[in-house]
């Protein structure tokens, strides 16, 4: 499903925090006229990234906008001109051979946050103490979720951008080599990458067996390099920096022109959607406009952002897609399964075998039912759970395991804060 360009919505919703860290500070005022690519909000310090105008138009208002949590957050409404074009404001190009600090600064200025879904500011990942030794740059082409195909299409259609991005990233990290991990169900992408790999770069393409959640960075490092990131540590401790393939492609696409992110590739799917596919959608496009444009059959009952394993249900269609949105999945009344009857745990051990962090979800589930949150944390390593959902997926008793764990974590957080 080739990537198609999406039209501009009549009104874009742009929150100032689309990344992990401090929200950006607006630099425009209401009724300002802005050009596509122009800075709308600047980074607030190091743990923050700026936000750029996804379209040329008028800033309608600055204030509160709806978010996926159901709360209102700071942001602005932008009304694109009816004749708004795809042309983008050019900035100061970042040369390929620029220094480490210049590249990292350029990546921050481009507003880049992990496009795989976590939306962690990429420049923060790249900024490490002087004595850190990075030997491998890992380009993650695993496609974190089974249903999504954005990374697949990006690998096929933006192959050159990816390699340009890798050049910047190798310079920024000081790594000697790059490895691109691709799963065996995307042989065409692996082949395209292999065929187009520049001769002067030490870059290899590794094809891996399909296994959820291999796209999780720690899992990928283990599979590819047989290095286990110790608990509580980051990948740099084992000499690796992992970057999502779409993030690498975006770096390669934006930095040569000094531009910022205005749009991203998103899989639109779900049984209710008429024209499923991959679209390059302007940041801030509301879900209602997206679903109106692709067409929906039946009465919508559930829409979630991301994939079916870790995606988040949305409370309303007024919320926009942001930098971290990799998929929009819409289900109609017929497909959204009613809550299944759940049986008692029969100790089958499927969850234990499925857990990528090697926890004991069965035991954690039994403890969660008894509200023994402290025991879950102290004796059964609850905090290691990154909520991939594999345990709930396989459970034949239909016990909402990962959902219990989320409650447990938030209860623990509350208890600690009090």
């Amino acid at each position, binding site marked *: 499903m080739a990537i198609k360009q999406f039209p501009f919505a009549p009104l874009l919703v742009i929150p100032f925090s689309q990344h992990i860290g401090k929200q950006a500070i607006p630099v425009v005022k209401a009724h300002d006229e802005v050009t596509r690519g122009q800075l709308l909000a600047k980074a607030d310090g190091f743990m923050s990234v700026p936000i750029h105008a996804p379209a040329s138009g008028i800033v309608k208002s600055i204030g509160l906008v709806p978010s996926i949590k159901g709360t209102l957050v700071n942001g602005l409404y932008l009304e694109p001109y009816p004749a708004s074009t795809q042309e983008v404001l050019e900035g100061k190009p970042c040369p390929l051979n620029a220094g480490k600090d210049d590249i990292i600064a350029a990546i921050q200025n481009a507003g880049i946050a992990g496009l795989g879904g976590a939306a962690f500011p990429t420049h923060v990942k790249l900024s490490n103490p002087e004595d850190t030794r990075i030997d491998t740059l890992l380009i993650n082409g695993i496609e974190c979720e089974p249903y999504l195909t954005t990374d697949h299409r990006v690998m096929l259609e933006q192959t050159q951008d990816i390699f340009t991005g890798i050049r910047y990233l190798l310079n920024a990290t000081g790594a000697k080599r790059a490895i691109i991990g691709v799963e065996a169900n995307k042989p065409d992408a692996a082949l395209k990458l292999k065929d187009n790999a520049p001769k002067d770069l030490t870059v290899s393409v590794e094809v891996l067996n399909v296994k959820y959640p291999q796209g999780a960075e720690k899992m990928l490092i283990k599979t590819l390099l047989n290095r*286990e*990131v110790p608990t509580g540590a980051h990948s740099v401790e084992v000499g690796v920096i992992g970057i999502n393939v779409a993030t690498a492609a975006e770096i390669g696409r934006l930095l040569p022109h000094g531009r910022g992110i205005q749009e991203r590739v998103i899989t639109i799917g779900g049984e209710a959607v008429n024209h499923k596919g991959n679209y390059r959608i302007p940041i801030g496009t509301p879900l209602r406009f997206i679903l109106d444009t692709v067409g929906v059959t039946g009465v919508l009952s*559930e829409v979630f952002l991301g994939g079916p394993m870790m995606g988040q249900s949305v*409370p309303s*269609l007024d919320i926009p897609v942001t930098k971290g949105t990799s998929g929009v999945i819409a289900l109609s009344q017929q497909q959204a399964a009613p809550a299944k009857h759940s049986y*008692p745990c*029969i*100790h089958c051990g499927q969850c234990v075998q499925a857990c990528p962090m090697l926890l004991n979800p069965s035991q954690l589930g039994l403890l969660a039912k008894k509200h023994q949150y402290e025991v879950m944390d102290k004796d059964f390593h609850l905090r290691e759970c990154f909520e991939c959902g594999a345990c709930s997926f*396989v459970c*034949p008793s239909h016990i909402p395991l990962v959902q219990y764990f989320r409650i447990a974590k938030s209860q623990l957080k509350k208890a600690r804060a009090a």
Partner: protein
Amino acid sequence: MSGKTLQIHSSPHVSSGASVNVIMRNVVYALMPVVLFSIYAFGLAALFTISAAVISCLLTEHGLCRWSARATTVNDWSVVITGIIYGLTLPPGLPLWMTIVGGVLAVSLGKFIFGGLGYNPFNPALVGRAFLQAAFPVAMTSWMAPFAAGRFTSLASSTLAFPLTSPTYDSLSGATPLAAMKFNHQPTGTMDLLLGMTSGSLGETCSLLIVLGGLYLIARNMMNWRIPAGIFLTVILLSSIFHFIDPGRYPNAVFMVFSGGLMLGAFFMATDMVASPITNLGCFIYGLFIGALVVIIRLWGGMPEGVMYAILFTNALSPHIDRFIQPTPFGQRRGS
């Protein structure tokens, strides 16, 4: 299109489709060849005993659910497995009233009293059988020869014994291979053991069909193969050592594996998910324990067979194995 009534679910939004009742139904399928062979070998006695076992277990669970005012749990199929396995462990000529008493106790004391499915510390079928073994030792060790003429037309008189009476047994009683070995040092041919040409409990005689059923469940990822593997490993290892020391007194490993209830126990009773450990390593260790206990009871115990007690004792050990064998979280393993 309307977004007025959007549902909010916590991910994942999909599931593998696996379900407890599907697993349980497949165990029933896997047991079917064994049941059919049992009826073929022992005739009406098998049909009546297994039916009485299943029906008594089913009605007990249903009745107890009604009595405690909760939705019936018979549709999860687990009680059907209990009934079939319990029936298969009984001797062919057992009075039906005893079968029913054991079935009621298996489900009520073996399962329901602990909270039903998922909470039984012991395999319920074996709880019922253990009661019968203790209460009616003669009836539980009176065997019928297989393939008796007229097995499809008439029932042994013992089967229909009046409730609360102990029957006299017909003269066609035949010793099981284990008893023949233990008390008379008389071996049985491996082929006979494999194909079920011997006397014994209803479902334990034909090793071949039991293995097939087990392999089916293993292939469908509905049984942890490490349990039977652990059992066979210790049984083969230990019995080979003792056979090597004194071949006249101790049977060889092949005989040990294929005779008695070992095959049925290893594949269908020890593997009760609820009463066995949850980790793969734990399951293997649990299997090793069962195998060792089987050898000890068989070689030096007063009884020729020890599979039932070996499994029950190791069931009790299972939560403790789980306590000591916990998976080590990613990132905390040695060398990382």
